């Protein structure tokens, strides 16, 4: 009996050491780029023998799931992805590991990234904490088939005196929005919309309205850091926003987020929408869209909101070296290109110009253009709170619950208070 026991133990011991392989755990968001990366995982596992477990969850749960892990001395994730919103907070709390030593040791050239993205989700005050993973800068999608329709072109010309083409200025865009808003079944209610607003309070309205702000030539901060949310440009942007809700966008759109807005266009009920560039592929997917092949993409007049996710190794990561190995692999030119070929949103300049990528995805140079003109959103320690507070005032203004100028003044005040709290401005 004893012998059998010893023999059994030995077999177990060897069996366990044979099957033992390192496994790294990554927390990611359920977005197309995560799916593309998952498809390529076997390559990494074959190359390195390291197993990869990706836990993909929805955006709204990510922050509250990440924070407890980052707070503990040993978390359960080796590698994470960080939204640009959280960069200020995570680095201030010292939750992310500086990557400069790794970058130097392995000769990683960070200049391969689009500079705006490296600033957004790469470097903070001269220290590299992240490598840019994918970008979700916002752009305008529009009905190609309608803009190219000679009948529409003629009607537009006679109505406005302008040529119907992809708009490059805000007034031109707004004329088109007005022109395409229609009551097709003549029941007295608009059923085809010039644009779609995503005005839900908080994150949704803050991101979406930013594009209106940039469209008016507005900015979030003056050069001395003072907030500009009650500037003439900001007030005009909100006036346009309100006008859209009242006339050119579906009735409930003050409560929409990006998925609802996407659906309106995908169902063929609207002419244009400002949305994340990563949503674009969805319009060409017959499973989610009835306007396959009819949607074009172009920069938002005045520039769209820049957004991106970066890879980071938390200080609480149990296997930093393995996590770095994976990050290096995922960001190698080869894999980054393969991701782009699958439909991913690149961050490295060379990929936007790669012949093979352009052949498969002809609109990628436009994505490069969108990224080049993308505008900044405030990134500081309290960005998440900023988005909530300002997003509330924007929504109050948009729904008319608060008088426009008062809401923008209150938004400005709330923003200033947070900047002071963060030490960016004197009281």
């Amino acid at each position, binding site marked *: 009996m004893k012998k059998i026991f010893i023999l059994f133990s030995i077999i177990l011991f060897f069996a366990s050491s044979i099957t033992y392989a390192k496994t790294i755990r990554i927390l990611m968001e359920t977005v197309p780029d995560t799916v593309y990366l998952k498809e390529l995982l076997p390559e990494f596992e074959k190359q390195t023998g390291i197993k990869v477990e990706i836990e993909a969850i929805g955006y*709204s749960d990510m*922050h*509250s799931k990440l*924070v407890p892990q980052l*707070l503990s001395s040993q978390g359960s994730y080796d590698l994470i992805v960080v939204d640009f919103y959280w960069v200020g*907070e995570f680095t*201030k*709390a010292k939750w992310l590991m500086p990557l400069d030593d790794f970058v130097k040791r392995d000769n990683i050239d960070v200049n391969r990234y689009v500079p705006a993205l490296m600033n957004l989700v790469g470097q903070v005050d001269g220290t590299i904490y992240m490598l840019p993973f994918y970008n979700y800068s916002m752009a305008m999608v529009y009905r190609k088939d309608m803009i190219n329709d000679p009948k529409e072109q003629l009607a537009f010309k006679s109505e406005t005196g302008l040529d119907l083409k992809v708009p490059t200025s805000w007034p031109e865009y707004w004329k088109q929005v007005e022109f395409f808003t229609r009551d097709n079944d003549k029941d007295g*209610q608009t059923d085809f919309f010039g644009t779609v607003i995503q*005005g*839900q*309070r*908080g994150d949704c309205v803050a991101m979406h309205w930013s594009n209106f702000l940039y469209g008016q030539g507005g900015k979030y901060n003056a050069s001395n850091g003072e907030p500009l949310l009650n500037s003439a440009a900001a007030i005009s942007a909100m006036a346009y926003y309100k006008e859209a809700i009242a006339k050119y966008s*579906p*009735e*409930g*759109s*003050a*409560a*929409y987020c990006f998925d*609802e807005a996407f*659906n*309106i266009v995908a*169902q063929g*009920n609207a002419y244009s929408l400002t949305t994340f560039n990563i949503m674009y592929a969805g319009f060409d997917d017959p499973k989610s869209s009835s306007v396959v092949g009819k949607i074009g993409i172009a920069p938002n007049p005045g520039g769209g909101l820049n957004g991106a996710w970066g890879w980071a190794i938390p200080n609480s990561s149990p296997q930093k070296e393995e996590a770095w190995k994976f990050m290096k692999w995922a960001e190698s030119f080869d894999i980054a290109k393969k991701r782009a070929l699958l439909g991913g949103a690149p961050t490295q300049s060379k990929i936007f110009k790669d012949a093979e990528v352009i052949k498969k995805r002809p609109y990628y140079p436009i994505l490069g253009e969108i990224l080049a003109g993308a505008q900044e959103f405030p990134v500081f*320690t*309290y960005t*998440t*709170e900023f*988005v*909530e507070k300002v997003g*509330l005032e924007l*929504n*109050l203004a948009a*729904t008319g*619950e*608060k008088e426009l100028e008062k809401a923008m003044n*209150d938004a400005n005040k*709330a923003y200033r208070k947070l900047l002071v709290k963060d030490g960016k401005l004197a009281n």
Partner: protein
Amino acid sequence: MALTIQKRDQLFGVFLTLPGLATLLIIILFPIIFTIITSFYDYTLLNPHHDSFVGLDNYQEVIEEDYIGDSVLITSQFVLSTVLIEFFIGFIIALSLNKVKRFKTVYYVILLAPLMINPVVVGLIWRMILHTELGIFNYLLKLLNINRVNWLGDNDTAFWTIVFVDIWHQVSFMTILLLAGLSALPREPYEAARMDGASSLRCLISITLPLMRPVITVAILLRLIFSIKTFDIIYIMTKGGPGISTDLVSYFIYRSAFFGLDIGRASALSVGLLIIVLFLTFFLYKYMRSLN
């Protein structure tokens, strides 16, 4: 020395309740004490330590916070509307089901179905159903030639939409509790009343309601406490909006903690809410007892 039987029974009782008590202590008392302590410290997610005591500063901040007054008011309106409407509907359904003899199981299953759905799923389903352009509700209205309704995007409508969804989801809880109470009522008083020629309404007012009082108290109390804590459907359906029209206190607390990163302030808010709930429970319980 041998223990008396009574003493032994007592000891056995203590022994049996110990594991339960210990669990309660860990999962209820500990978080409450931790929250109360944290509410007096500058405890943020950026610096999660009890190292800077700030006294009542967090409470002061809460009182000075924009929109907190609105949030308390909206929460009270929400709690009152949902609990009262659910009670009336629940009681009517319970009364009618109590008389039913056939297919009782079928009714039970239909009634319990919403209750078995996770609130997050309830929120997601209703958000799609009530979508202004693509939702089935407005589509049906259009077939009837009624103008579409902006269910979740309009300040006044959104509040009642949320109340409606909550009622749809929770009314069966009320019904089941009341039904259990009704079916346990003795038959004799009714028979006696019938003999004396009392009408159905008379029976309801003079027999059913007084006899049901303890059950009604418990049902209303439980729903009241659950209703004050409502979070999921707000989080999924409106995020407190449009504007502040559905901004319940629970969602306010969540925002302070996870967007404002300020656990101290969120704890102060939670303690405030706890005190309100305790008072409400205490007074309602006392009032109902005094009626007996």
